[in-house]
């Protein structure tokens, strides 16, 4: 196993950092450490927050011996077994790439010198890896591993874009859970909710899984939206090949 750095984060958390890059191999180490620590249930350890290249480990200082905790975390970090990671899941995200639901699609096509259909194909025919969640509840940071777009953010961020927007730059694509300001280009809109507080587990996605955007037409969009409102819609989820 390659090196890692363990840091104190204040008096009630530790961070284990792996190589300083955003990549699938590095993030898989974070996922492996997350799963190892979640499985061994060290007394006093609270929430575990996986991010691109680091795992944040919250602990209760009143119930934890810091030396014992550090030793246990180091033991786990030094013996990560990436071969034992469970098969990654893929969740299908239905996307309407059309009209006011895809405000910037034509502009994207123009920038990339491709047709709208080609852009939709690029966006919907790659699996996107969920590196982490954050920014807003349920908000995934996802990226595809091939064929990045050439553009970054828009020159002027929008003050508010609607929840459900699918926004893109380079190889990145995010689902916006709630209305928010945003400077990315809107390629489409999904009728599913990345965060639905009515549910016992409100969050659609988790770090370390994949998503696949599936083009849908307007009637399907409206039908799925109706089912989502009734709390009846479930995204198709399956194990990733390979």
């Amino acid at each position: 196993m390659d090196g890692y750095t363990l840091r104190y984060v204040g008096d009630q958390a530790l961070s284990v950092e792996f190589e300083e890059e955003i990549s699938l191999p590095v993030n898989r180490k974070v996922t492996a450490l997350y799963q190892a620590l979640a499985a061994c249930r060290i007394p006093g350890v609270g929430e575990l927050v996986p991010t691109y290249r680091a795992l944040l480990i919250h602990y209760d200082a009143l119930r934890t011996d810091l030396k014992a905790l550090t030793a246990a975390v180091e033991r786990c970090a030094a013996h990560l077994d990436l071969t034992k990671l469970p098969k990654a899941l893929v969740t299908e995200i239905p996307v309407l790439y059309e009209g006011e639901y895809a405000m910037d699609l034509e502009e994207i096509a123009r920038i990339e010198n491709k047709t709208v259909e080609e852009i939709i194909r690029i966006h919907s025919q790659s699996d996107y890896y969920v590196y982490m969640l954050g920014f807003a509840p349920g908000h995934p940071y996802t990226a595809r591993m091939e064929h990045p777009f050439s553009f970054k953010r828009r020159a002027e961020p929008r003050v508010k874009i609607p929840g459900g927007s699918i926004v893109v730059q380079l190889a990145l694509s995010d689902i916006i859970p709630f209305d928010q300001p945003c400077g990315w280009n809107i390629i489409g809109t999904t009728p599913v909710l990345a965060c639905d507080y009515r549910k016992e587990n409100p969050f659609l996605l988790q770090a370390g899984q994949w998503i696949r955007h599936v083009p849908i037409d307007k009637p399907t969009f409206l039908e799925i939206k109706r089912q989502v409102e009734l709390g009846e819609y479930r995204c198709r989820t399956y194990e990733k090949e390979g």
Partner: protein
Amino acid sequence: MGFVVEQPGVLTTVQDGGRFGYERFGMSPSGPMDLTSFEIANLLVGNRREESALEMTILGPTLRFTAANVVAVTGAPLKPKLNGEDCPMNRAFPVSAGDELALGAVQGGCRSYIAFAGGLDVPEIMGSRCTALQNKVGGFQGRRLAKGDAIGFRSPAAALPHMERRHVERQVETAPLREIRVVLGPQEDRFTREGIDTFLTGVYTVTKDFDRMGCRLEGPVIAHREDGNIISDGMVTGAIQVPTAGQPIIMLAERQTVGGYTKIATVITADLPAVGQCKAGDQIRFRAVEVEEAHRLLRQQEEELKALEAAIHAPEPAAKAPRCYRATVNGLTFTITLTECDD
């Protein structure tokens, strides 16, 4: 039945100990900005420390009670008035249906708390009753209280035992210049030696951008080795971010769960309440301590709370057994029982 909000104050929210378990999905815990004052308010009225109560900011609300209960007000000093009469801070007192409690303005500090025996009847969402204003969820309809809102009590108590014990001598920190202790890191190596020195010797002023998410400070510019950007990683409450411009931001209860700015240091847990009592214009000087010292201070704070809890709930001294005498007068036998008076 509970109370109706007659005037909402500046920013009054339902809080509890916090919503934990969802940080990896992007949801920060929220909860009280001055956890210690919050917990003391609950202890005074016999609640679990993390029970739901109200957090008030700068100007408290006016409440009209629709049911009797026992309440306690703590935190930043206010001049609360019950039906126009002064009533105490840091002491439990009873209220009756029809009473009007005007909490008034803080006389220093920023945030005060009022706890109600038995807690507040708002729905539990994801295991918590606290309001996450940024996420518009939890507490009372996911928002700050407004005029006319009515909140019920879950299990009010018209009276509690040992009312005389339900008080605490306590002042929150309201000095205009406060020392806040920090543990350096996690990214202190992204700053120059001079940058760290600047941070630990400079005086930083709280700007008008201070809310439940964070507290922006203004003061001497802190120098990075390169810039203030990192690959986004996890965040804790009390993290002090320093973006490239070199001005620190203390991340608080409703912070984001991840962030892409360098974090020079983290406020120790024992001093977070003091940050929660800061408002615009207050000044902060940071002092670095080792993590072991931070833990010692946290344990000390915990022992003080436990002592308060024990003092309130200490058992009654054993009642003195009555003494029984037999006396025979003129051939008739009487029993006489004597019980010693308390006073």
